[in-house]
């Protein structure tokens, strides 16, 4: 029998029937809207306990207000990011770096990696990103009046950029996407083998780059120094695995949700097509409306938080999709307003662990939308098809079939 997922110190009246994995709308749903489905928590208290709110079936406290999430994520002393999520799928224990390190050791790795994905660096990468988008979309436009955005554009576009960054040829896109899918959306039989495959891939890549230096990310990592020393093999693996996992899925999902929104809202689509200079601001709003991840922290000590008795070791969930629909932070949070200003959304997290790839992700989304809208005429979701959306560890969308005939 499963262990009782509600610990004794949690007052029963603070438990809510809610989970990003099992609530209505979270399993794959045709024409679903998982973001709207989670927004219902704002009718309730600022914090509650949710059994079964992680992939491995653990309970978490759920923080529903953006300002409280900011407080949790900024306070790394009380709320640790050290969880070994990836390694634990293998029965091992090592952190993905820098995500699962806390300050102060987090800082050294963060300073090492920040310049690789800084706003300046991203502007250098931009022409290659744009060229890739144009090539893909021109190909799609030339071959018909319909396509599956996820398969034909979102994944090849984002995964190519990430392979390019890692210094890998892109003839293995399908393989990598398959690994990511098994890891992030697969069941208990698929996840551990996928994790193992990714680890050996990263280990082999690192070994190859130690032998033969080339001008790429992995070479940089194996040569890099933190605190005056080289990274250990396990640290190299921790960095490599994180970059691999983070780069494969999230931006593609965001582009999918964004184009699905525009396919259903022709006025907004037309507005952005006729006034492309609005896309940068609009992309920010789409990032707010359709974020993809739940951030989880572990309490390092007992603390009472907004009336909730959080105990050392408890999991605390800061779901970005919940913060971004907080009515005390955003006016009419469930309305997509492409002209929204002051858009301090939680999509890339708060605090020292702010998404390292946020500057690149943003540019990929903006460039993807710009090139798509300038090359593809008014598009809708193809009659008789329904995009399948899901909640869970990373919110996702599959099979977005668009039609512009």
């Amino acid at each position: 029998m499963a262990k009782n997922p509600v610990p004794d110190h949690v007052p029963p009246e603070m438990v809510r029937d809610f989970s990003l994995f099992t609530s209505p709308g979270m399993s794959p749903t045709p024409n679903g809207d998982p973001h709207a489905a989670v927004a219902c928590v704002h009718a309730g208290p600022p914090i509650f306990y949710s059994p079964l709110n992680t992939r491995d079936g653990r309970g978490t406290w759920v923080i529903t207000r953006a300002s409280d999430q900011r407080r949790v994520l900024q306070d790394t002393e009380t709320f640790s990011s050290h969880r070994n999520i990836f390694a634990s799928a293998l029965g091992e224990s090592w952190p993905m770096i820098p995500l699962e390190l806390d300050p102060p050791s987090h800082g050294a790795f963060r300073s090492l990696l920040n310049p690789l994905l800084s706003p300046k660096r991203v502007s250098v990468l931009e022409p290659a990103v744009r060229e890739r988008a144009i090539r893909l979309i021109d190909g799609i436009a030339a071959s018909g009046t319909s396509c599956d955005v996820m398969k034909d554009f979102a994944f090849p576009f984002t995964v190519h950029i990430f392979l390019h960054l890692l210094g890998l040829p892109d003839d293995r896109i399908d393989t990598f996407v398959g690994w990511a899918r098994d890891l992030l959306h697969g069941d208990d039989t698929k996840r551990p083998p996928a994790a193992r495959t990714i680890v050996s891939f990263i280990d082999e890549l690192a070994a190859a780059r130690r032998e033969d230096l080339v001008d790429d990310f992995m070479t940089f990592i194996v040569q890099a120094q933190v605190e005056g020393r080289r990274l250990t093999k396990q640290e190299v693996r921790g960095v490599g695995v994180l970059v691999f996992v983070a780069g494969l899925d999230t931006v593609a999902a965001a582009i999918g949700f964004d184009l699905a929104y525009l396919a259903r809202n022709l006025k907004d689509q037309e507005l952005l097509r006729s006034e492309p200079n609005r896309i940068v601001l609009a992309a920010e709003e789409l990032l707010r409306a359709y974020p993809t991840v739940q951030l989880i922290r572990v309490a390092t000590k007992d603390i009472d938080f907004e009336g909730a008795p959080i105990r050392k070791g408890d999991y605390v969930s800061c779901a970005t999709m919940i913060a971004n629909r907080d009515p005390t932070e955003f006016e009419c949070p469930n309305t997509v307003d492409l002209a929204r200003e002051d858009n301090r959304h939680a999509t890339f997290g708060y605090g020292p662990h702010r998404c390292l790839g946020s500057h690149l992700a943003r540019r990929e989304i903006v460039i993807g939308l710009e090139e798509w809208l300038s090359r593809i005429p008014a598009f809708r979701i193809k009659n008789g098809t329904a995009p399948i959306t899901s909640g869970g560890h990373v919110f996702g969308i599959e099979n977005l079939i668009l039609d512009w005939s």
Partner: protein
Amino acid sequence: MRIIVQNAKCQGHARCAAHAPHIFKLDDAGYILPGNIQVVEGEELTASRGVRSCPERALEIDGEPSSTG
């Protein structure tokens, strides 16, 4: 108008600089440079947009409340 910069809170989102790169200067990693910022006349609106777009609330307007609300 003056902007108080709390560097300890800055996490390098670069949203301030996205609104006004000439007002909010970032280091090579994308974090805001130390030192409070004196905003010249005529730049108040842009500057306050930059302040309000900081997800960490690392920026604060000092003195008269901005006329833009």
